[in-house]
């Protein structure tokens, strides 16, 4: 169970922020030079602040956005945006907001059966059987077969979305913040379901979240993203035990466990991203920034269970841990 299923090689995505035909084009690098590998059967989690490029990355994995440069490989074979149909059989998404990810004009049955119809799988009867099977699998009652999304609660909707994502039996499911729009009680149901399905169907998850507690609960490997770059990529245990990048540390400190004895932590990081044009992108907020951080981008420091990019990680420390 360690073969590579998904691989990204130096993927960059740049957006042209033009607001009209004649306006000078501004550019925004949403994802910068990201490389990663996801192994079959693992849960690869991606955390990072809002706007750091997580969704953009997910869209590229889904073939919805072509990368500006770099390569995406599924099962070792490079894919392009033209292979959207082919990718869609192997990679499927679950989105953050179950309220906007289901077409309100379609019944549950139509929604779940759509991938079968699009790919021409089965006939009417077999599709119906398959939809029923999926309903059972995600824990929806067969009563909901003809219901419309408007009649379902958030948790039920997210189940429909999961059923739709799984009906073609994909290998990878890209979960883009699948529970952050939901109440904690519903979140628990969905997380349990995802874990259960992974076990039963042998799925691989690419799991995006900014909730570190959830990530710690779910993930095998974790990557931390900041302003379009990966700053640290580690095994779960390693990352949570000894975060190496200052941003990762701040993130971990910001996790608020329901513990009334502890106060509110002071993460000591700044709140502005301005001024980080040169050197390490995190330097404007970094509490520990030293001179070199303002001039030179940090190189990748390899760690036993992954890597991080920070000038402050001394080589000795690497070897020590």
């Amino acid at each position, binding site marked *: 169970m360690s073969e590579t299923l998904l691989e990204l090689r130096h993927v960059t995505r740049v957006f042209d922020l033009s607001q*009209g*035909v004649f306006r000078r084009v501004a550019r925004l690098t949403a994802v910068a030079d990201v490389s990663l590998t996801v192994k079959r059967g693992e849960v690869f989690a991606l955390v990072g602040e809002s706007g750091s490029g997580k969704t953009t990355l997910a*869209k590229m994995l*889904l*073939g*919805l956005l072509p990368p500006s440069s770099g390569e995406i490989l599924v099962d070792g074979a490079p894919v392009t945006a033209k292979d*959207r*149909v082919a990718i*869609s*059989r192997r*990679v*499927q*998404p679950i*989105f*953050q*907001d179950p309220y*906007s*990810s*289901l*077409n*309100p*004009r*379609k019944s549950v049955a139509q929604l779940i059966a*759509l*991938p079968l119809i*699009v*790919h021409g799988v089965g006939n009417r009867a077999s599709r119906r059987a398959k939809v029923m099977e999926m309903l*059972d699998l995600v*824990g*929806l*009652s067969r*009563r*909901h077969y*003809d*219901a*419309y999304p*408007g*009649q*379902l*609660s958030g*948790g*039920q909707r997210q*189940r429909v*979305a999961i059923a*739709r994502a799984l009906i073609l039996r994909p290998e990878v499911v890209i979960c883009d913040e699948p529970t952050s729009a939901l109440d904690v009680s519903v979140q628990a*149901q969905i997380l*349990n*379901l995802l874990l*259960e399905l992974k076990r039963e169907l042998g799925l691989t998850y690419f799991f995006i979240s900014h909730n570190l507690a959830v990530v710690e609960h779910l993930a095998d490997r974790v990557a931390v993203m900041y302003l379009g770059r990966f700053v640290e990529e580690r095994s779960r245990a390693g990352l949570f035990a000894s975060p190496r990048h200052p941003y990762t540390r701040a993130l971990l400190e910001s996790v608020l466990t329901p513990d009334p004895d502890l106060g509110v932590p002071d993460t000591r990081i700044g709140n502005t991203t301005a001024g980080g044009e040169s050197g390490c992108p995190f330097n404007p907020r970094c509490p520990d920034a030293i001179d070199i951080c303002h001039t030179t981008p940090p190189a990748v420091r390899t760690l036993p269970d992954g890597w991080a990019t920070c000038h402050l990680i001394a080589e000795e420390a690497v070897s020590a841990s």
Partner: protein
Amino acid sequence: MTVAAPVDIGTGLEAPAAPQRRRAGLLRRSFGHSGLVLGGTMLVAIIAIALAAPLLAPHDPYNQDLAHRLIPPVWQAKGGWDHALGTDKLGRDYLSRLIFGARISLLIGTLTVLISGTIGTVIGVCAGYFGGRVDAVLSYIVTTRLALPVVLVALASAALVGSSLQGVIVVLGLLLWDRFAVVTRSATQQIARTDYVAAARAIGCSTLRILISEILPNILNALIVVATLEMAHAILLEAALSFLGLGVQPPLPSWGLMISEGKQYMFFSPWVIGIPAAALVALVLAINLVGDGLRDVTAPENRG
């Protein structure tokens, strides 16, 4: 503990009763909306009259009788029941002309909206969905269209192609698509950003399929509202063109034409212009009420 037990999910009080409740809600809201009820009733009545015109009209609307011209309507001293609304300047039965006129006016409204709706929706949906350059080009076409003064261009085109019922419909159809385009564009933009469109793409749906089965159904409400309002607009424009002498040609009894012909008598026999004007106002009012009502009833803030 395992995955949450299926039976527990959806034991919420709401789910089972929901489908009927929701639909009933829309109907109830519709019937509770006085404007919609009033407009709808008027509109249905006018449509029924138009459809059943040959059955309802007491006389042939084209039959002239110069000896009995300008008979006043029944409520005036010299009126009589044979011509309940009197006769026009050529002695044609006014009621019959009014009834047949409903057909022409509705026909103009409907066909114009069909043409302009198709053009506008295609442009708007494409601009909204594809965005970027496509949007820039299409928006620019829309702006160009908006820059051309409708009445003037309609008049000029009518003068070029000759004024006739078909001509008026085609000219108006080719001119009135702007609102469709603007509305569908912004609606499509909103929908194109939703996750369900992204999901459909991730599933592997073709662009055409997404446009037709994901986007179109969701902008239908907006389209219907625009269509009703645009229909009223078209009917009024036809009346204005007729008034300016380049609309439907006689002896076809369009209401706009009847008004413009009745203008001659406005000082001494105001009923000649008053009757078709009242009919036109009623029709346009009905359509507007229905359009407004639909907008209110389907507006998201009013949904259950």
